[in-house]
């Protein structure tokens, strides 16, 4: 009962949030003074041509009327047609989505592994120079945003030691046998490890730029919550059983310390996904974010709307999943 109510309530607020996003984006971009139709026609087009094309894209109607038509389409899975590419927005956006998802998830994996390892090491070796070092490194990692880490990584591993690729998603001359756009996943399934390596060599630096600040946050939070757990009675009890310190941390303290970290990692993961916009630009990585910036520069209204809505769906979706996981994992909420 309690859980079901929580779920329904969260679904409702998610729907309201998404509607709010749609309204704001729709109205904001229609304040644009420039005429996107005039931009896509060759110079010398007559006023009649402009009017015809404006009517074709429905831009001659009032803004609330446009919103009504667009909203009705969206609910049926029709996000309109891109003005510059003249293709359905949904297909374009879905074609780019896998690249961004693979990058974000790889970055999340790196962040969890590095941050988790740092927190565990810091807890095992607490009150030593190692813990101090981890704290200082974490502070540095947090002080500087992903955009700057990306530039520094480009300098370090693209110029000083050119061992990784600094632009693109895959070497263009390679023959790709893929049927989906999940290149990394598919290369693993097909056991084409040569392609996996090439993809990873392109993805590592952008993923690392996104992962560094998140890893620091995970390390900080998890270490803090481990520290609190280590003082609890049941942990002391486990120690009196003669278990090693490493086992006590891993088997006894960690499972309990994970819960508070989980919620914040969820929120931070949405920030990471938001960061892909500029990181993809920086590394010329052909994902959603890079396409979004092009769409904004070209004033491609339907495409911008589609991308922003998709980002909002991902953001709210991640938050929803984290909340539900929290509700399912937390016994106090489950029985409440």
């Amino acid at each position, binding site marked *: 009962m309690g859980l079901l109510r929580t779920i329904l309530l969260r679904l409702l607020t998610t729907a*309201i949030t998404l509607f709010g996003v749609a309204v704001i984006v729709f109205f904001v971009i229609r304040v644009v003074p420039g005429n996107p139709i005039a931009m896509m026609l060759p110079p010398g087009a007559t006023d009649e041509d402009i009017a015809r094309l404006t009517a074709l894209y429905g831009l001659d109607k009032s803004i609330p009327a446009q919103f009504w038509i667009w909203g009705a389409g969206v609910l049926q899975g029709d996000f309109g047609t891109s003005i510059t590419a003249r293709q359905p927005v949904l297909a374009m956006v879905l074609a780019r989505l896998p690249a961004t998802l693979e990058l974000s998830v790889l970055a999340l994996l790196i962040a969890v592994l590095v941050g988790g390892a740092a927190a565990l090491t810091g807890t095992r070796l607490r009150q030593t120079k190692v813990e101090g070092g981890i704290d200082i490194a974490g502070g540095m990692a947090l002080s500087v945003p992903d955009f700057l880490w990306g530039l520094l990584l480009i300098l370090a591993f693209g*110029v000083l030691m050119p061992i990784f690729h600094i632009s693109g998603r895959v070497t263009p001359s390679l023959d790709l046998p893929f049927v989906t756009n999940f290149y990394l996943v598919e290369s693993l399934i097909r056991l084409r490890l040569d392609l996996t390596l090439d993809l990873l060599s392109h993805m590592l630096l952008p993923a690392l730029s996104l992962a560094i600040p998140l890893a620091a946050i995970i390390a900080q939070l998890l270490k803090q919550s481990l520290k609190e757990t280590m003082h609890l009675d049941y942990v002391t009890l486990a120690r009196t059983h003669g278990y090693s310190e490493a086992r006590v941390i891993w088997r006894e303290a960690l499972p309990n310390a994970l819960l508070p970290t989980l919620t914040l990692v969820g929120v931070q993961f949405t920030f990471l996904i938001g960061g892909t916009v500029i990181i993809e630009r920086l590394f010329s990585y052909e994902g959603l974010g890079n396409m979004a910036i092009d769409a*904004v520069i070209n004033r491609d209204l339907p495409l911008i709307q589609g991308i922003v809505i998709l980002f909002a769906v991902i953001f709210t979706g991640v938050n929803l999943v984290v909340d539900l996981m929290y509700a399912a994992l937390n016994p106090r909420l489950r029985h409440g």
Partner: protein
Amino acid sequence: MVEGRAEVKRKAGLRLWLSAGWLGALVLVALLAPLLAPNDPLAQDLFAGRLPPFWVSGADAAYPLGTDSLGRCVLSRIIFGSRLALTVALTAGVITCIIGAGLGLLAGFWRGWVDVVVSRFIDIWMAFPPVLFSILLIAVIGPGVFSIILAIVVIDWTRFARVVRAEAMAQGAMDYVASARVAGRGRMGIMLREVLPNVLPIVLVLLTLEMGIAVIVEAILSFVNLSISTDDPTWGGMISEGRSSIHQAWWVLVFPLVTLFLTVLSFSQLGEGLKDRFDPVLR
């Protein structure tokens, strides 16, 4: 930590002074830019394109940190670029702070419908990717200093509102608020005279951090060519140019990048330092 409390305090103090020192120097550089810059930041010299910095052979002493592909002085452009960076940091930071903290205070202390509306807007704002949102806004209102500031204010007010709302709620539940109310003081008076001073330290910390964020946002917008005219010197614009000629002229990327890095680091270290200072547990 193995270090004693005094040692920790001394290190924190050093961090505070170093970052304040860098930012103070930067303000001076921005104010005295015309006196300090060795060259006109806009002047092009196509015969002196991509000259290396002074210690590399082939350099020209007139351009201490070298030139970009159009033969413009890198040092002078960094110096003049600090003007835009600091203008945006100060103006956008302060306006965002006032609006965000004000709404947060109202929502957290006043509660009721104000809280419902503000919280709902915060939720919607959290569903936008901020970089995309800022690029979108600039594309809508057109490039320019005013647009950059407006974009930062519109996007980042939630950073203040979220924290201040939670803090004001916590303060509102405290005994001193209740006793002020019993003493017959008005809610507005209590909010401004009692609660506001108590949330001010955290607001100051957020403001410092926000200024660092504003510098980054300005650099990102310049990087995607959406801040001000591409001729005018901006750190982000220089970084964008440096990124594309990274294999031919590393100095076009490295010097503005280092400047931006130190500035952002200073703002955030200053914020963190102030946070420790205000934290009663550490003091």
